[in-house]
């Protein structure tokens, strides 16, 4: 990688980018499942947590 990451504090390496994308995708998937999914079972199991964390609910 020879791209000059202008303005960024450090240069982006392939490995860091791979880990970053994987972490982001897994994290968003988990948040969607717990907080936003309209599936009834997911809603009911996570009901109190959705209210507690302030996810839009019902």
């Amino acid at each position, binding site marked *: 990688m020879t791209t000059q*990451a202008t*303005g*960024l*504090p*450090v*240069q*982006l*390496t392939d*490995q*860091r*980018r*791979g*880990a*970053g*994308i*994987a*972490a*982001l*995708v*897994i*994290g*968003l*998937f*988990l*948040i969607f*499942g*717990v*907080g*936003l999914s*309209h599936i*009834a*079972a997911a*809603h*009911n*199991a*996570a*009901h*109190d*947590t*959705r*209210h*507690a*964390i*302030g*996810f*839009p*609910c*019902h």
Partner: protein
Amino acid sequence: MIGRVILAALLAGVAAGFIMGVIQHFKLTPLILEAEVFETAGGAGHSHETGPAIAGADEPEEWNPEGGWERTFYTTAASMLAGAGFAAVLVGIALLSGIPLTARNGLLWGLAGFISVNLAPAMGLSPELPGMPAGDLLARQIWWIGTIVATGIGIYLFAIRRQPWAIAVGIALIIAPHLIGAPQPPTHESGVPAGLAAQFAANSLAAAAAFWCVIGVFSGLALDRTAKGVWAT
């Protein structure tokens, strides 16, 4: 490296979520249970309540956790999964942006998360109890996600970028969702006592602040152990 980093981030979030679960058990769930008494008494067009209190309601049979320990178990598990999700996203943003996330500055990362995910959306959609009236669910979810993304980018622009244009755009992004306005219910009339709702909103924000501080610090510790050299490369 990738597997280790992600595993560490998820574990950091799970641990933070467990702490959140304990706070919920004492400061939030009791208020939800109290509100459900008013919710079922009012019975106004609410399609999927939780808990045994609605056993007699004439609704299609849906799976619900049993009240008591089973409900506590699912609530705590959900918080641990949410914590893992938030921690993974925080770590992902740090790795992709190249802004170091360490045990030393984890608290600041956590506060940025709290402001983006809880504080800013609360200005339009305050944390609500079951039984309180609300606008269309999908519209609220879209506004909620949009507010989080806009606030997060706004914080990045004026905390990291710092140039005058970035500060101006950042402030505009943070204000925009509130100018657009969150979807509101036709009326705020509700069987849930206002005092109970106010206490829940305050407790929820305080709990979320603690939750995010722990997420930030634990995520920093996780990256310190698994990806220490990554910021220099």
